[in-house]
């Protein structure tokens, strides 16, 4: 996998670069602001761009805006946005389009899961941080989810994080068949289209949660 990294803090940028290289991937460019990111993406057409949300000059949402630009200008490049905290507002909307990930920065410490999520995004899948998902699914507020069992809700959350059936099975230590059953049940109960395409299924789940979120 060929990766472009955009992160303004040198230490963290180097750390990310080493992380990808240790996992056997190629970092084709590591830059420190949004403009250089645009240039690097245009130049290298990587599989994945890892983007920090806050970058110079204003340190507010440069990363999110650059991510949108990449989605429009280079739809084949996966974008993984890293944030210091949960800023769900812009992120969920982007994730529901596919080829996009939104993770808290400290997820990088769990190298295995992080690289897996990065690969998923590079292949056109999605990755949504568990904290974002739990804030979408969590609480009693999302009344529509009351019809689900505890286990089904767990499965729904992992679907929202972007995991495939295999991934879910591995995470929950279940057989793939059992997971398939739960997934079918969830989709039926929430009246979502049951397709074979895992990506589209995830997107449907996120779109559902997002709609519920907006109604609140």
């Amino acid at each position, binding site marked *: 996998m060929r990766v472009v990294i955009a992160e303004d*803090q040198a*230490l*963290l940028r180097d*750390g*990310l670069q*080493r*992380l990808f290289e*240790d996992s056997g991937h190629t970092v084709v460019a590591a830059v420190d602001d949004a403009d250089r990111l645009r240039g690097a993406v245009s130049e290298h057409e990587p599989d994945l761009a890892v983007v920090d949300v*806050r970058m110079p000059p204003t*340190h*507010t949402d440069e990363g999110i805006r650059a991510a949108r630009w990449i989605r429009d200008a280079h739809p084949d490049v996966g974008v993984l946005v890293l944030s*210091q*905290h*949960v*800023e*769900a*507002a*812009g992120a969920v909307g982007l994730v529901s389009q596919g080829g996009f990930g939104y993770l808290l*920065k*400290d997820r*990088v*410490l*769990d*190298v295995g899961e992080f690289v897996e999520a990065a690969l998923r995004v590079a292949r056109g899948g999605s990755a949504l941080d568990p904290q974002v998902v739990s*804030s*979408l699914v*969590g*609480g*009693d*507020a999302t009344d529509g989810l009351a019809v689900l069992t505890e286990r089904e809700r767990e499965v729904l959350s992992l679907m929202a994080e972007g995991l495939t059936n295999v991934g879910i099975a591995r995470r929950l230590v279940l057989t793939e068949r059992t997971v398939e059953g739960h997934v079918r049940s969830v989709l039926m109960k929430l009246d979502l289209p049951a397709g074979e395409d895992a990506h589209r299924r995830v997107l449907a789940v996120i779109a559902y949660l997002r709609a519920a*979120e907006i109604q*609140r």
Partner: protein
Amino acid sequence: MRLPWIVASGISILLVAAAVLDAVSGRSTGLAAAVAWGVATFVSVGLGLLVATRRRGNPIGWLLLANSGVLAVVGFAESYARYGLLGHPGSLPGAAWAVVVVDRAWPLIFVGVTAIGWLFPDGRLPSPRWRPWALAAALSFAGLVVCTVLEATPFGDPFADVPRPLPDVSDGIIGVPLAVCALGSIGAIVGAAAAVRTRLQRSSGIERQQLRWLAYAAALVPVAVAICLLEVAVTGDDGPIALAFGIVALTAVPIAVAIAILRYRLYEIDRLINRTLVYAVLTAALAAVFAAISLGVGVAVGSGSTLATAAATLAVALLFGPLRARVQLLVDRRFDRARYAGLQAVQRFLEELRAGRAAPEGTGEMLAEALGDPALELRFRLDGDVEVDAAGRVLEGPDPPGRMRTPVRRGGLPLATVVHDPSLAERPDVLDSTIGAAGLAIEIARLRVEVRRQLAEVEASRARIVTAGYEERRRLERDLHDGAQQRLVSIGLALRHLQHQVPDPAPLDAVVVEVASAIEELRELARGVRPAGLDDGLGHALRELARRSRLKTRVDATDERFEDQVETAAYFVASEALANAAKHARAGSVAIAATRRNGSLVVQVRDDGIGGAAPSEGSGLAGITDRIAALGGSVSVTSPPGEGTVIVAELPCGS
């Protein structure tokens, strides 16, 4: 340039010479008149010299000098004639001619004053149309002098026996021209009065004040003359009263003219006229009362009684105060409408003020009305030479064009400035007395404006402090996220990298887990300082807050954006209320609403708990209430026992 001095010196020499002649001849009759004449001439010379040297282009100075010159010549001629004909007969040449001057040149005495009337104050006729009449007047005077000199009638006392040094001209020849010239001369004097009147009618500003001086003096002359004649009639001779009022009659016009030209602001002519009227009427009224009572009591208890005089004096003394006030009011009402109306308006306003029906801030409008200048402004002067209006707004920049400033002082301190129409300065007495009467109201208004401004200043600074506090929170949150937290992530990554290079990577896992939980704690800390979600708006942050709450929480919040400090304050109200609901109220569910209503952001948090919460309870909410108040808002807590708690915060947020 030296000419005025030379003329004045010549006149002075004549005066001194006349006095010396009188002293040498031992003159005894008509001495009072002679002294009055001398004093008047001296005053007139001095004033003429003053005006002629200070105002070179203005012929009025020369007219005054000419006038005093005539007086001096006539006075000297009399002394000369008395010495040469009565004291030491035959000792002086041409003494008979001096008698001609004394006895027959009298029309010249009126020429100077008449000319001043025609030409005052700028030395020009009121208009070119007056020119032929001025010429006729001059010719009349000249003709009159020629006729009186040639007239065959014998000289008057004390020179009745002196033979005329001129050939006699018969009455048949001189009668008609004499009558015509005399009439013309009277016409010239009437014309002078008419000129003053015409100018007074169409004048304004300085010229009007100058003319008022002249008119005042002119009105004084006949009164003074009448008093002189009264003394002569009563006592049979001219005494000290005739002397004093003779001087007044002869010097009133020159003095008034000099003041008008040189220092028209020296005294307030209007107040002078006003006071003269008041005291004239007062004196007459009190004299009448005195006469009536002493006469009445005298008839009752016998004339010559001291009782009558005492009673009359007592009555006059008692009457003086109230009568003076009444007469003043009467004179003001009749002759000084502006002053009367202005003071009445101020008086009414002060009564309203005392009764609490008017606010001191209305003083400016009241003055505008009282002085009849709708555009009049009252500007309060605060410390640091700042000028503000009644609403406390700072007034900067130049005054409106064509306005005039009059400072208001009390106890030497500048209180305010009245910016008014320049025409009001024509009546400085009205302006000053009206402003003076309103002084207390102005002072109260100024104090109130000052206090209000200071309060506003304190409120603004409190709001700034709170805003700065929120700003500080935002900075702190940034620092935590972008500084410490990032660094910890880097350390974690470095550790992970290290794991690839050591033979036994397992022990490092525990360290990385520690780092991860440190990051998590830091994130929680930063959220407490200021939730990053506020960057995306209040509605967003509140929904985020609800999601994290243990309680079933519904949010109905506008997605509208407000100023940062408003959003932050509103967020912390909701956050604190939610925490209280979870901690103390044993609530099951909470509803948070945030809407804009009437220029305010209204945040309402309602729980279904046990209620009974006191507003002071929980210092968290108290501190937040203070901060909301600092931003001009308010917080109310309604918490009846058993019915849940409703907390409503209102924050002004512009329109």
